[in-house]
């Protein structure tokens, strides 16, 4: 059977998006927003620019209903997330995670946690503990590097 045709992406209009985001900003009374409209995390105006990975422009999504590559999700994250709520149950993935990535994710969390502990130890001038934590961190990031080279 052919795939269900899915949702209409016609309203993924960057202009509408900016307008929506702008009115949301006004509603939250940020007040400081003035020139150039709302900005993305990287200081990019929403709905503009091209994906550094594949050269895809957000306008292309309106035409084709599809993105260019996986990096587009990084680059156009805010525009995409803005529209996901209406299509899906929620906007955050709660399903399966590919095996290797689960480890990488847990590793990253572990590293963040150790980093915090180490900073705490340094602040408390507990240098012995900090050194032990530093060694653990070193070991973890070595393992990470080894596994990502595979």
């Amino acid at each position, binding site marked *: *059977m*052919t795939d*269900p045709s899915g949702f209409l992406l016609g309203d993924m209009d960057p202009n509408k998006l900016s307008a929506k985001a702008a009115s949301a900003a006004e509603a939250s009374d940020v007040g400081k927003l003035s020139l150039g409209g709302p900005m993305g995390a990287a200081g990019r105006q929403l709905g503009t620019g091209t994906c550094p990975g594949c050269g895809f422009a957000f306008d292309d999504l309106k035409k084709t209903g599809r*993105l260019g590559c996986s990096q587009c999700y990084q680059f156009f994250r805010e525009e995409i997330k803005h529209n996901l709520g209406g299509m899906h149950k929620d*906007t955050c*993935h709660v399903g399966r995670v590919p*095996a290797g990535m689960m480890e990488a994710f847990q590793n990253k969390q572990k590293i963040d946690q150790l980093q915090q502990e180490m900073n705490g130890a340094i602040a408390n001038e507990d240098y012995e503990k900090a050194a032990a934590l530093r060694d653990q961190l070193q070991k973890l990031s070595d393992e990470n590097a080894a596994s990502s080279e595979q």
Partner: protein
Amino acid sequence: MMRFSTLLKHPADWMTGADSDSAVVLTSRIRLARNVSDTPFPGWARKQERIEILSDLRAAIEELPEMKAAFSHQLSELSSVQKQVLVERHLISREQAARSEGSAAVVNRTQTLSVMINEEDHLRLQSIRSGLHLQEAYELITKVDEQLEKKLTYAFDQELGYLTACPTNVGTGLRASAMLHLPGLVISDHIGQVIQAVGKLGLAVRGIFGEGTESLGHLFQISNQSTLGESEQDIISRLERVIRKVRDHERNARLKLVEDDPQMIADKIARAYGLLRYAYVIDSKEALTHLSLVRLGADMGCFPKETLQLCDSLLMDIEPAHLQHHAKRKLSPEERDTLRAEIIRSRLQSLPTPVISFINHTNPEDTPPA
């Protein structure tokens, strides 16, 4: 490697209604969309990039133990009739059939598993089962997915899950669906209510044949819409729950029809039988409508039980590309209608006249003495 003719000669169990309970739910299907990270999606990639990624992906798929001696072909190696036949067998999508170089289809020997390479996404993994067995289909597809994720670097994001060419598939990348035969709900005019109720639960109902709201052959597909914010298990159990409900409604509708108007149902089934057995020219629409009624009759005990399988095979074999493959040449619509009638007549030749037991049972006193 498996040849096209071998694939055609041995239809999968699920195509011919192997499950003992496929009278209402014919098939269950799970599809996963997967992509390789940092490589353009097929629709955006240049031809050369598509060809390169295809060779990597195809090698990874063919290595799978599940794909031993599989059918594996580039779309450019297949004729347009062959591609269309694969579409009619639900092994590839219409979109995939329109592609040629840089796209491939890999199907396992029992045709329970098929992989489209470079369709809308780099990989579309699909598993189909007879009857209502979404869970089993999901288990097989996950086994394959787990092997692939060790070999390939999937495009995955902590927040958005599996990244897909279209944002409507992002998250789990999972589409679960079932094909249902609902003549009882259509004839009793309750289908609209059911479609509306299912739609309110965020699931989609579509006709399998025909266009718009009209569904030929009383065949419908129910599937999930949302892929993000819900786990695979939640999506599947929710869908399965709804499908069971629809199946119960269909069963009740059939019982009610027999109770309320047995003559009308008997008339429909017997006329359909007569028409199919004696027609010399029959178009797709007419054939589907009447085969659906004979299928309903088989479930109600008017025909031998194996008639269900007979109908399911026929539904597939009378589609346009199947007919042309059978004739080994291109056929005009008129020629197709003649061949279609011929195939139906010959398959139904030994089917006995319908036994309408439910009329006698309801009113035994009215039956004139023999």
